[in-house]
């Protein structure tokens, strides 16, 4: 089912986010913590850089031979007793899952959040088919109760404070208490969800990696909800993007080492599970049927494109946690499923470039995302490429086009550019009236609406001082 993207309202949404004190508090508490944790994990792992190199090369290799690995995986998974399905589009993928649920005469479906599931609109499709959908990740449980979308790919309820969660649980869990401690909130959810795991007819999950040579599905979680979702119901369905393949478990080991460190600053997540086929003779648990849906939904188009490196993404969210723009506006402003730098590249794939045209501009090209990406995706280059496309396809608003066009004329003529920057630097100093920061830029009020512009230093432009040997 197609989900509604509101990425075309980015500006309003970002502006609104800046004015929400709860959101600002939640963002501040969490992103600072995650940055510090990643930095510590990085410092403690001497081989981080060489592992990151290997991780990046593994992903490149798989994309270069994706057809080989898809077929190899299909053969191995089928031999292990899985049924492998293929979906060209998001709608096709959802239809396959809904049909499988119907065939299983399912009433209740438990689900582990997967980014692909969110991307293809699976929650909406399951609701639309009249199934009782139970989100089992704590954060998704919160979002489901609040009717919210995930605001972060790893910590989807990052936008919620404990006070807000407490309010939601008070009613939904039927105890009527106002819980203040986070630990008690977690316990409240544990009790509410335990019964559902046993009631479910179908469990739906995603995959962090698909292991080509063994046909295994690898998931990593901290809560343990994935295993309860995958083991208890009679039918288990996995949905995964075709880019999730890795050659073998040893290759997965390399990626796992950078994934948990980049995402949460951990050496390893609490649970790393490799599932290879359904219940076997003599087994006392496990599903009777295991289905794997391999989903294209725009990926093959990206593969042929300059933007192909985004297919290496392992959804660790490091780029998001380190993005100064995300840190200010949070996830919902992006109006889609993916946020921050990776979201600015993936949302145009999942929605359309026209819908997502403001996202690549919500970037200062500071490059912190590139520095932390565990698979070395050149995010800022991809964002620049998208900006060019937006320009070429004339998707930019008129005044901006006009202004950039003028700027383009100027920068192509070095002498004119130097003259123009000399004039504007001096003009800005006059405008600033001696203050160090400019609160509102002339002719570009939007830029300074939520940030200040440093007043140019005295002594002329960089080029003038450079020529004088000052620097």
């Amino acid at each position, binding site marked *: 089912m197609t989900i509604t993207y509101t990425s075309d309202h980015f500006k309003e949404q970002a502006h609104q986010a800046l004015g929400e004190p709860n959101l600002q508090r939640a963002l501040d508490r969490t992103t600072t913590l995650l940055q510090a944790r990643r930095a510590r994990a990085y410092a403690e792992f001497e081989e981080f850089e060489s592992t990151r190199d290997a991780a990046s090369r593994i992903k490149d290799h798989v994309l270069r031979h994706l057809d080989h690995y898809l077929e190899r995986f299909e053969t191995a998974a089928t031999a292990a007793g899985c049924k492998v399905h293929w979906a060209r589009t998001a709608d096709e993928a959802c239809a396959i899952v809904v049909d499988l649920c119907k065939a299983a005469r399912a009433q209740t479906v438990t689900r582990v959040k997967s980014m692909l599931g969110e991307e293809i609109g699976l929650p909406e499709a399951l609701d639309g088919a009249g199934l009782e959908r139970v989100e089992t990740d704590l954060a998704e449980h919160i979002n489901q109760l609040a009717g919210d979308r995930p605001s972060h790919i790893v910590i989807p309820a990052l936008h919620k404070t404990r006070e807000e969660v407490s309010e939601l649980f008070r009613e939904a869990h039927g105890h009527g208490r106002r819980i203040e401690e986070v630990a008690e909130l977690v316990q409240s959810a544990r009790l509410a969800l335990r019964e559902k795991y*046993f009631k479910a007819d179908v469990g739906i999950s995603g995959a962090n990696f698909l292991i080509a040579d063994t046909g295994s599905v690898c998931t990593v979680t901290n809560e343990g909800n994935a295993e309860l979702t995958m083991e208890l119901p009679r039918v288990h369905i996995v949905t995964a993007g075709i880019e999730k393949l890795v050659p073998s478990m040893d290759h997965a080991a390399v990626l796992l080492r950078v994934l948990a460190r980049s995402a949460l600053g951990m050496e*390893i997540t609490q649970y790393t599970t490799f599932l290879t086929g359904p219940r076997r003779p003599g087994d006392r648990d496990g599903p009777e049927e295991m289905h794997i849906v391999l989903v294209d939904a725009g990926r093959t188009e990206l593969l042929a494109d300059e933007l192909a490196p985004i297919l290496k993404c392992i959804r660790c969210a490091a780029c998001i946690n380190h993005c100064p723009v995300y840190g200010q506006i949070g996830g919902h402003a992006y109006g889609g499923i993916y946020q921050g730098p990776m979201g600015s590249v993936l949302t145009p794939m999942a929605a359309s470039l026209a819908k997502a045209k403001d996202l690549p501009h919500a970037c200062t090209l500071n490059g912190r995302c590139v520095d932390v990406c565990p698979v070395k995706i050149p995010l800022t280059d991809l964002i620049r490429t998208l900006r060019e496309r937006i320009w070429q396809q004339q998707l930019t608003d008129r005044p901006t086009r006009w202004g950039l066009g003028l700027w383009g004329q100027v920068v192509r003529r070095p002498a004119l550019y130097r003259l123009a920057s000399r004039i504007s630097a001096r003009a800005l100093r006059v405008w600033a009236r001696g203050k160090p920061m400019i609160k509102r830029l002339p002719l570009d009020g939007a830029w300074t609406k939520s940030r200040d512009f440093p007043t140019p230093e005295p002594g002329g432009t960089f080029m003038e001082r450079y020529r004088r040997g000052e620097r």
Partner: protein
Amino acid sequence: MSARDTVLARVRRALGEPPSDAKTIEAEAAALVPHLNEVRPRLDDSDAVERFIEKATSDRVTATVERLPSPDALPTAVHQYLDRGDLGPRVAAALPPILRDLHWDALELKDEIDRNEAVALSYAEAAIAETGTLVFPSSPTVPTLFSFLALHHLAVVRADDILPHKEDAYQRFVGRALPRSLVLVTGTSGTADIEGQNIRGAHGPRYLHILILDAS
């Protein structure tokens, strides 16, 4: 054209070049992980068991560990754990016959696990020193759910089965048929979903107690 053929055709079109043969691709893949020491933490010469204990009991993994001189000491150790926590005599146990046949008389061992079980005892076929991780391959003897349903998880592992790195543990299972589920457990069920605060006992165990059996 079927969805399968369409997706594969699109991939091939996107890649342009004719596909390499499987042998070449596999050689290339193998060359990507040639020097394992560049892609994993170097473990200094410290003994794997000691490193495992250090990691498992760290403030990030939060397990407790007890080292037993021989398998015979297992029933008493379990009994004492239950006594300390005032948990009663009942334990859902998934153990290989040789441990199941020890003298468990003072306890109530049962082979099934309930949905709100208090204590589960299960056998890990291997452990990983690198991260303080237990490895549970599913089998009729040790079903996966024994690692997830109870609030207290007691795990038994032999000292000889504690291996340095992830790859060493995989090596035990790859090649022979991979178990239906291979679960790597590092500590207890946790979440950082509310304000990034680490909380234990989200859906699975809140306490993990590891009993290491030295060879007798």
